[in-house]
C-alpha cells in the first residue's frame, strides 16, 4: 500500500527522481523558530515525495556544525548571513561542510519602532529624527539617553559603533536571546510604551505589530571598513545594516551518498513573502507546521516538483 502511494505520487510528478542512492535516512536539523521549522519540513516533505527517507533532528543553531562536520547530521536549511556567517565559514573551511547555495530568502535586520512612536517622534522613519527625540525613547535607567534594545552580543551588528559614529544619544542594551527581545516588544506594545529595538525578517513580529524600520544611510561595504566613507569622516559603521541571504549547508558527503537529493536541496528556493505568509499562519493563526507546509505544497505542486526533477 505504502509502496503504491509512493508510486502514485511519483507518477504525478513530471520526471521524478526515482533512483534511490541510499536507503539511510537523510538527517535534517530543526531549530526553535517557526520559519526554520517550515523551511526544513518543506524540504523534508519534498524529499519524501522523491522517495527518500527523512529524519528530523532537533539541534542548536550553532552547535549543529559539530554534527554536520562529522556526518552525524546532514542538512541545515537556514544559516543566516547575519548571524551564522562566522560559524558557517569556519565549518566550510574544514572541508567537511559545503554550502548548497541561497534559500532565496533575504534577511533584513534593522532598528524598528512601533507605529505609535511616529507621533511622539515626528520625522521617523528617517534616522535623523532620532537625534532630536532620544529622550522619547528613554527609560529611568538610561535617561537622558534613549534606550535601544539590541540583539544578543553573539549576533554582532555593530550597534554600539553605529551609535558612536552617527552621534546618537542612545544607550545600547543587549538582550540575551531573541525570545527576550520579543518579550520586551510585546510588553511595550501592550502598554503603548516607547521602544526601539532590533527586528529581523522573515519573522512573525513585523506581521503582528504595526511599525517600521528606521531608514539609515544605505549600507555599503566601504562604509563598514573605511572610516572616511559616509557621513562621519572619522568613523566606520555610519550607515545601516546590510541585508543578507539565508544559506543552506550540508555535510560534505551528502552529494556522494544521495546525489539527487543534494541537487534537489540546491534547487530549493522560496521568497520572503511566501515564507512570511507561512510563518504568520503558524505563529499567529495557530496552524501546525505540517498543515501549513501541506497546504503550500498542494498549491504549488509545479514549483516543488521542479526541484526534484532530474
Amino acid at each position, binding site marked *: 500500500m*505504502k*509502496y503504491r*502511494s*509512493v508510486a502514485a505520487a511519483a507518477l504525478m510528478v513530471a520526471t521524478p527522481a526515482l533512483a534511490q542512492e541510499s*536507503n*539511510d*535516512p537523510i538527517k535534517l536539523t530543526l531549530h*526553535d*523558530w*517557526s520559519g526554520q521549522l517550515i523551511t526544513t519540513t518543506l524540504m523534508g516533505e519534498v524529499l*519524501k515525495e522523491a*522517495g*527518500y*527517507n*527523512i*529524519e528530523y*533532528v*532537533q*539541534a*542548536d*543553531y*550553532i*552547535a*549543529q*556544525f*559539530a*554534527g554536520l562536520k*562529522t556526518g*552525524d*547530521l546532514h542538512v541545515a536549511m537556514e544559516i543566516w548571513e547575519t548571524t551564522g556567517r*562566522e*560559524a558557517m565559514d*569556519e565549518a566550510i573551511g574544514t572541508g567537511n561542510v559545503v554550502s548548497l547555495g541561497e534559500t532565496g530568502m533575504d534577511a533584513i535586520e534593522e532598528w524598528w519602532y512601533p507605529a505609535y512612536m511616529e507621533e511622539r517622534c515626528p520625522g521617523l522613519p528617517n534616522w535623523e529624527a532620532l537625534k532630536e527625540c532620544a529622550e522619547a525613547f528613554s*527609560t*529611568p*535607567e538610561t535617561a537622558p539617553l534613549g534606550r535601544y*534594545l539590541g540583539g*544578543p*552580543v*553573539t549576533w554582532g551588528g555593530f550597534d554600539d559603533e553605529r551609535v558612536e559614529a552617527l552621534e546618537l544619544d542612545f544607550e545600547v*542594551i*543587549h*538582550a*540575551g*536571546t*531573541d*525570545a*527576550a*527581545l*520579543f*518579550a*520586551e516588544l*510585546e*510588553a511595550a506594545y*501592550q*502598554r503603548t*510604551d516607547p521602544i526601539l529595538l532590533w527586528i529581523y525578517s522573515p519573522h*512573525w513580529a513585523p506581521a503582528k505589530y504595526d511599525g517600521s524600520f528606521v531608514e539609515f544611510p544605505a549600507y555599503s561595504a566601504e562604509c563598514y571598513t573605511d572610516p572616511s566613507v559616509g557621513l562621519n569622516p572619522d568613523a566606520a559603521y555610519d550607515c545601516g545594516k546590510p541585508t543578507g541571504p539565508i544559506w543552506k549547508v550540508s555535510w560534505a558527503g551528502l552529494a556522494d551518498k544521495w546525489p539527487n537529493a543534494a541537487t534537489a536541496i540546491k534547487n530549493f528556493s522560496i521568497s520572503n513573502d511566501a515564507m512570511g505568509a507561512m510563518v504568520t499562519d503558524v*505563529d499567529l493563526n495557530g496552524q501546525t507546521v505540517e498543515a501549513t507546509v501541506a497546504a503550500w505544497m498542494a498549491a504549488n505542486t509545479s514549483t516543488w516538483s521542479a526541484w526534484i526533477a532530474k
Partner: protein
Amino acid sequence: MLRLIKSGSGFWVLLFAATWGLSASSFAIYKALDARWIIRFPKKWELQLDGVISDFLTWLVESAGFHFFSFKDLTRGIAAVIEAPYQFFRNLLIEGFSTGFGETATQLSPSLSWIAIVVCVTLVGRFARDWKLAALVGVCFLYLAIFGRWQSAMITLSSILIAVPIGVVGGLFLGIAAYRFQWVNLALRPILDLMQTVPVFAYLVPILILFGFGPVAALVATVIYAMPPMVRVTIMALQAVPSELQEAGRMAGCTRRQIMWKVLVPAATPTLMVGVNQVIMLSLNMVIIASMIGAGGLGFDVLASLRRLDIGAGIEAGLAIVVMAIALDRASQAFSERKYQAARRGNFLQSHPLSSTMFIVSGLTLILGFFVPAVQSYPESLTITTGPFWAAAVKWVNINFFDTFEAIKVVILQWLLLPVKRFFTGIPWAWGILTMGLIGWRVDGWKLGVMAALMMAFIAANGLWAKAMVTIYLCSVSVFIATVIGIPLGIWAAEKPRAGKIILGLMDTLQTLPSFVYLIPVIMLFRVGDFSAMIAVVLYALAPAVRYAAHGLREVPEQMVEAGLMSGCTPGQILRRVKLPLATPHLLLGLNQTTMLALSMLVITALVGTRDLGQEVYIALTKANAGSGIIAGLSVAFIAIISDRIVNALADKQRKRLDL
C-alpha cells in the same frame, strides 16, 4: 590596633574597610599613577589556555586512540550501547515498533496506548504504597494527556528512564569504590565538585563531538549533571552503617562481597533512596538544556512556545515537567519506605493482581486501538488549553501594574544593585586575590587560603576578572534577597505545619519548573537587565533557603525548647534565643545550597542579557569554542567551590561551638 586585628570582628571590619576604600578609589589611583594594570589584568600576562584546551580536544577527537580503535570509536560505541535501550523505550511508549524508514516502513506493533500507560503508572503507585499515591500519579499522567503534552512527555520520559538508572547505578558503584579505597575517594572529590559546579553549557560542545548529535549526547550530559549527589549519598550512607552490623556479617563468615551486598547496601537503602530522588530531580532539571542539543520532548515545547511568545503553552509544557517530577518523586520515595509483604498465594492472577491487570489492560487497549483510534492515542479534540488565560493575565498585569513595578525596581536598583555592583567591580584584581586568600585563611586555615587565592588568580590570569566580579555581584545580591525572603518563610513553614505544606509544595514547583517559563514574563514586566536576571535567580534559588530553615528549626531537640519554656521564655524569645542559634548550621547549609543554585542559574540568565561569566560560557557555546567555554565554566566552578568551602567551614565551627 594589633589587638583589634587579632580579635575576630576587628579583622573583618578592617578587611572590609580596606577593600571598600580600594574599590572606591581604584580608578583614581590608576589615573594618578598612570598604572592601568591596577584595574585591568595585563594582557601580556594572560594565559592562553583556551587555545590549548581546544587543541587538546581536537586531538582527542581526531587522533587520540588505543591500539585498535580511536578514542572517538570508544565514545561512539558507548553512545550506541545507550541508544539501543533508549530507542526501545521510545518505541514502547510513543512511536511503536516498525522496520524500515519513512514511506517504506512497516509497522510491527503500535506503542502502548495512553490508557495502558496511565493504568500502569497508577498501579505502580498502588504497588509502591497505597491507592492515594496511585491516584496522585494517575492524575499527573492524565494531565499530560488532557493538556495535549502526551507525545513530548513520553519522549522526555524515555530519556528519564535511561538517564536515571545509569546515574543511580553508576553513582552507586563509584560511591562503593570510594568507600572501599581511600585513593578513589580522594581522586573523586574534586571531580564531583567540578561535575556539580561547571555549567553544563561549558562541556556541551565536546560531548556533542564525542557522542554524536542527538538524544544520546543529551543523555550523557544529563548523567554527568545528575550523578554526583548519588555518589556523595552512597559514600555517606555506607559510612553511617553501624559497625556492629559489619561485625555481625564477619562473624557469620561473609566474604567482602557478601558484606557489601548483603549487609551494607541493604542497611543503607533508605538513605540511598534520597540519592535516587536527587538524580530524578536533577535529570528533570536538565530537560530544557537537553532539548537544545537534540533530545526533543517537553523541553523543546517550552523553548519553542516561548520563542513565539506563547506564554500559556510555555507554562503548560513547564508544568508538565513539574507534574512528571512530582509523580516520579513521590513514587520513588514511596518505594524507599515500602515494607516487604508476604507473597500471596494462588495462581498467577491471584498472586500478582497488579501485574496481571497491567498485562490485560495493555493487551486489550492494543487490540481495541486498531478499531477505535481514541484508545490508542488521546484524541486531539478533547485536549484543553489555558493559553489564552495566561496571555490575558500577563497582559492585564503588564498594563495595570507596570508603573508600580517600575517604581519599585528603580528604588532597588539605586539603593542595592548599583552600589553593590560598583563595590565589586571596583576591587583591583590583585587585592581581590589577596582578600580571598585572607578570608580562606581566617576561616579554615592556610590550606583553604592558598587554594582560594590560586583559584582567583586563575580567573584573573584568563582575563575574566571583570566578568567574574559581575557574577559575584549578581550572585551575592540574589542570595541576600533569597535569604531575606526564604528564612522567614522557612520559619513560618516550621511553626505552622499546614502553611508549611503549601509553602514547601510551592518551592518544589519553583525548582522543577523550567526557569525559561518565568523568565519571559519577568522580562515583559521588568525589561532586559540585571534586575530581571536577579528576580529569576531569586525565584530559582529560594527553595533551599526555605527548606533548610524549616528543616533546621524542626530538628531542634525538644528538651531545648522545654528548657526555654521552663526558664520563662516568650514564644518570640524561644525562636530567637533557642531555635535559631541551634538551627544555624542548617541555615548555613541552606545558604550554601542557595549560592550553588544561584551560580548555576546565572548561566541561564545570560539568555536574558547579563554581562558575566554565564554570558562568556554561552558565547563560547554559540561559537562552538570548546576551550574558552571550559575556562569560563571552570571559573564559575571555582567561585562556587570557594564559597562552598568557606560556608561549610563556618557551619562546622558553629556545630562544634554548639556541641552538636
